[in-house]
């Protein structure tokens, strides 16, 4: 599910351009606010020399302090409840602390321990496998669905779009309840297998160490495919219809058309989709908490579950914070890395 902290500016188009840069920088260009051509300045003293005065922030904001006053309330809340705690987490990660009483400074000890920690390694390995289910498979499915909707001239496009997107808006806790029932020993999946004579395959899918991770991952596929489809659809809506016509006239089939026209047009959206879904895979907390609690053993644990488990079950706050910092770094690296690759490809 795309969450508040899962929405990122990734494409180059969107980078804040510098035309709102510090006052006194280069000439403003483009459609950005051009607050201060002197002649808009109330018109009172159009002839007055203004070179030495800093331009006002905008036509209605006279004082230089005005913009800061407007930003201040948002910044106080954001600083106090996001930036400051992030710094505190980095600080916590350098200590050994049970959550109460005295703490011991251990430097980078917590990080060094993580390197040899079997559960942490399992969490990273599991997260990498979950990426296949959360990002790679939904990307393929989303591309196919969007391509079909874009050029297939199907009726009921709105219906299909809504239905396939629906899993995105359902609380993951509810999603977990639904899929637990499907995966349970007497659930829908086993019923279906029995119905076609595949009784040997039936099992408690979430309790079997061999299938638990894939079972959780498959839920991720179900949740993310609608988001990816929609992103692809928005990219494809920019392709002019004549391009398809031309390809058809040249005798291109659906497959060739897809690789020649459709795919190149949505590279930017693919980048965005990958960033969002990969991060969703790393941050799978609700689903894991509700379906497997990381088990059996550590077969389904992920970094975000390790953060919770270490801090509030094992009472290793320092170690939990170290995992949290590693997770944050990982998210930054993926965000920047995937965007870079996307930019280079286009």
């Amino acid at each position, binding site marked *: *599910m*795309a*969450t*508040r*902290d899962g*929405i*990122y*500016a990734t494409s180059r188009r969107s980078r*804040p351009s510098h035309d*709102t840069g*510090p*006052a006194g920088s280069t000439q403003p260009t483009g459609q950005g*606010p051009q*607050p201060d051509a002197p002649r808009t300045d109330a018109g009172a003293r159009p002839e007055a020399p203004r070179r030495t005065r800093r*331009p006002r*922030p905008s*036509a*209605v904001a006279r004082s230089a302090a005005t*913009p*800061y006053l407007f930003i201040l309330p*948002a*910044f106080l*809340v*954001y600083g106090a*409840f*996001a*930036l400051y*705690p992030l710094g*505190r987490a980095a*600080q916590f990660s350098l200590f050994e602390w049970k959550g109460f009483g005295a703490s011991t400074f251990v430097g980078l000890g917590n990080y060094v321990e993580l390197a040899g920690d079997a559960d942490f390694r399992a969490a990273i390995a599991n997260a990498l496998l979950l990426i296949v289910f959360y990002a790679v498979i939904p990307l393929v499915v989303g591309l*196919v669905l969007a391509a*079909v909707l874009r050029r*297939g001239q199907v009726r009921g496009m709105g219906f*299909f*779009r*809504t239905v*396939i*997107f*629906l*899993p995105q*808006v*359902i*609380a993951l*806790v509810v999603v977990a*309840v639904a899929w637990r*029932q499907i995966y349970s020993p007497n659930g*829908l999946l086993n019923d279906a297998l029995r119905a076609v004579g595949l009784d040997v395959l039936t099992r408690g899918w979430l309790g079997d160490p061999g299938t638990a991770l894939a079972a959780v991952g498959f839920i991720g596929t*179900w949740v993310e495919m609608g988001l990816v489809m*929609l992103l692809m659809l*928005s990219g494809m809506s920019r392709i002019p219809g004549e391009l398809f016509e031309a390809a058809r006239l040249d005798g291109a089939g659906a497959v060739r058309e897809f690789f020649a026209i459709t795919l190149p047009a949505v590279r930017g959206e693919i980048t965005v989709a990958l960033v969002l879904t990969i*991060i969703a895979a790393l941050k799978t907390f609700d689903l894991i908490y*509700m379906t497997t609690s990381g088990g059996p053993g550590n077969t389904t644990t992920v970094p*975000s579950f390790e953060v*919770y488990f270490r801090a509030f079950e094992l009472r290793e*706050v320092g170690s939990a914070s170290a995992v*949290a910092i590693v*997770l*944050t770094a990982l*998210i930054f690296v993926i*965000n920047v890395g995937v965007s870079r690759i996307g930019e280079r490809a286009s």
Partner: protein
Amino acid sequence: MRVSRVETAANYVILVGFALFALAPVLTIVLTSVSAPLGETGGLHLSNYVDAWTVGGFGRSLGNSVAVAAIVVSLATVLAILAGYAFGTMRFRGSTVLFYLFLLGLMIPTEATIIPLFFDLRTLGLTDTYLAIAMPQVAQSVAFGTFWLRSQFRALPTSLVEAAALDGAGPLQALVRILVPASKPAIVTMVVLVFMWTWNEFLIALIMAPSGSLRTAPLGLANFQGQYTAETALLAAGAVIVALPTVILFLFLQRHFIRGMLEGVAK
């Protein structure tokens, strides 16, 4: 553009297949929610909803969710409008750096801030309060909303602000009387998204209210699952109750949801 009949048929097979895949778990839970509870047989049991409501205490947890959502949505919207206005229409020293700082907030995972927030707020005696559950979500939403509304305000013609200036409006008047009304669709989209995220939020609500007195709806459901694992029918009814508000909102305001999702991630 013409598409061959075979291809059209194949397209429908693909679409119907995935639509069924998307709907199957939803239908499963809805059907289970009206199936026979433990110790009863056959028939349609709408009474499950009543039982789940009382046994699971969903009246209280839904009320908590409404309160948290009201705080987060209203506060985040007002703060983001003010900040987005400054970033979107004013020139000032340090605006780029400050804006990047807000942008950073879109990348900070909850997991990284929740541990210090819990222990620091506990020291202050503020855990198990609406403030503890709501404020971290306000912070995240403000980061998103500032980013979202900045581009909205930037896209408006500068002549709007200039006209307001000629009428003698101050910065706040120009915002409230001219820019906010002109930006209604973008603001509604933001409200809808923030509401949905807040309603579905799990980790923050789980950690910030350890006593359970301020359990939000998703936590109420998690708790219900922990206590009545075997009562699949009641559990399913509870799940439907928790999911319903966002699903209904989605079905009514699809355009806003979809537009927000797309623009929010693509911008």
